[in-house]
């Protein structure tokens, strides 16, 4: 018995001992992440230039670039961009607040968990994009249903991850904190919240991905402005170049926000791999 428990303990000890890579700071974003997208674009240009790909199906990258330049120049893209970004910003912020507040409530208090978790888990099983018909009936076809859709899509992954993050707090650390005389506030600030941070960041990334998806879907509902409107309008005139400019902007926005969260992650979780 004695030997066994010592062996287990030695096994536990291995991780902190071996995980001592010397500090290696990377200040620049990882450029390798851009490599494969660039190669794909080059292949695409090749296919268009050789006529394999007709412009009525897919315009060439070079054409798209020109279209983008003129769309930017006449302000059309900029306006659409601002409208769409505004929708995501408002929807995401709303969803973030709802997800974090409800997740925190359910994670931190037993009553909160008992009251909040069941309905949220039930609603979570609904495919939220399927709620569009109801949203149109409730909110009409203006900005509200689009923002509500984004907020809903963001709230669920954040709720789930904040809740799980708080619940996953190491019991051993909580006990140590209690023995060391930490009050409620100190335990929350130095044990629970830092421990929930990694989950929350995962929720943030998932939430952002859902936000862009919800925006794209939401902007198919009778939009009269924004990137979705630009794209749908271009489809009616067979302008694949404009469709692609719109999609590229969507993609760039997604990449940018993801990169921001990754930077945040590197800073918040800097204690992991110093």
């Amino acid at each position, binding site marked *: 018995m004695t030997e066994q*428990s010592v062996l287990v303990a030695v096994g536990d000890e291995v991780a*902190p001992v071996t995980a001592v890579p010397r500090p290696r700071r990377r200040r620049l974003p990882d450029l390798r992440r851009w490599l494969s997208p660039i190669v794909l674009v080059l292949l695409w240009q090749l296919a268009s230039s050789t006529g394999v790909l007709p412009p009525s199906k897919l315009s060439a990258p070079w054409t798209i670039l020109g279209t983008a330049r003129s769309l930017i120049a006449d302000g059309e893209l900029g306006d659409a961009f601002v409208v769409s970004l505004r929708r995501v910003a408002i929807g995401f912020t709303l969803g973030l607040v709802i997800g974090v507040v409800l997740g925190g409530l359910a994670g931190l208090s037993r009553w909160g968990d008992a009251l909040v978790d069941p309905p949220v888990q039930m609603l979570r099983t609904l495919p939220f994009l399927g709620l569009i018909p109801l949203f149109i009936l409730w909110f009409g076809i203006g900005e509200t249903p689009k923002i509500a859709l984004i907020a809903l899509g963001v709230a669920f992954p954040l709720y789930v991850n904040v809740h799980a993050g708080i619940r996953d707090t190491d019991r051993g650390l909580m006990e140590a904190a209690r023995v060391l005389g930490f009050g409620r506030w100190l335990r929350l600030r130095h044990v629970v919240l830092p421990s929930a941070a990694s989950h929350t960041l995962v929720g943030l990334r998932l939430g952002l991905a859902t936000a862009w998806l919800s925006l794209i879907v939401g902007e198919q509902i009778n939009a009269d402005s924004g990137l979705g409107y630009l794209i749908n309008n271009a489809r009616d005139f067979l302008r694949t170049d404009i469709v692609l400019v719109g999609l590229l902007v969507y993609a760039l926005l997604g990449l940018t926000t993801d990169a921001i969260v990754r930077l945040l992650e590197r800073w918040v979780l800097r204690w992991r791999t110093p």
Partner: protein
Amino acid sequence: MTVSVRGLGKSFGALRVLDGLDLTIAPGEFVALLGRSGSGKSTLLRVLAGLDRDVTGEFTVRGTVSVAFQQPRLLPWRRVWRNVVLGLPTDDPKGTAARALAEVRLSDRFGAWPNTLSGGEAQRVSLARALVRSPELLLLDEPFAALDALTRLAMHRLVGQLWDVHRPAVLLVTHDVDEALGLADRVLVLEAGRIVAEHVPPPARPRAPVDLVDLRTRVLSDLGVTEYA
């Protein structure tokens, strides 16, 4: 008395873990508690630490209590010095932490992240964190069990020195007979939830292992290990 326990009982379902246990620890006294796995050692320590209040019988603990656990239980997201002084009311946290870390000879890891420490270093931070609170009672829950043999010996010396300087009452829960005999004023053997034997090693310190051979044999036989007899 820093600790006085009378008739302490604790059950997990039908399992009686502590069964009418009596124990006193005088101020500044170093008591080691030996016992096989499941004998109730850790449960007793958790009760004294205030982590388990669902017990029968009486116990009082006077003064502040600190604990060093088997795993160091440092907050991985706080630097070493912050781990030492977090929750401690002090005007000069950095200075206090620096002094505490110097005592366990870890001044050079002051600003390190806990994940970069070796097992022995992390356990020394845990000791510094326990001692910086000037406890009247220091509870040590097999704090060296996870360390390699050489580090463990160095830790024994360090604990002996720290105890000499700070003089808290200590309850050291351990599997390691040599550790108990080398460090403690009194060695208690726990069996089936009560104390079944008490041994007093020679008071002089440091103690040479050769002087402890007979006592060691007796303690081991109390623990049911008789292959040397």
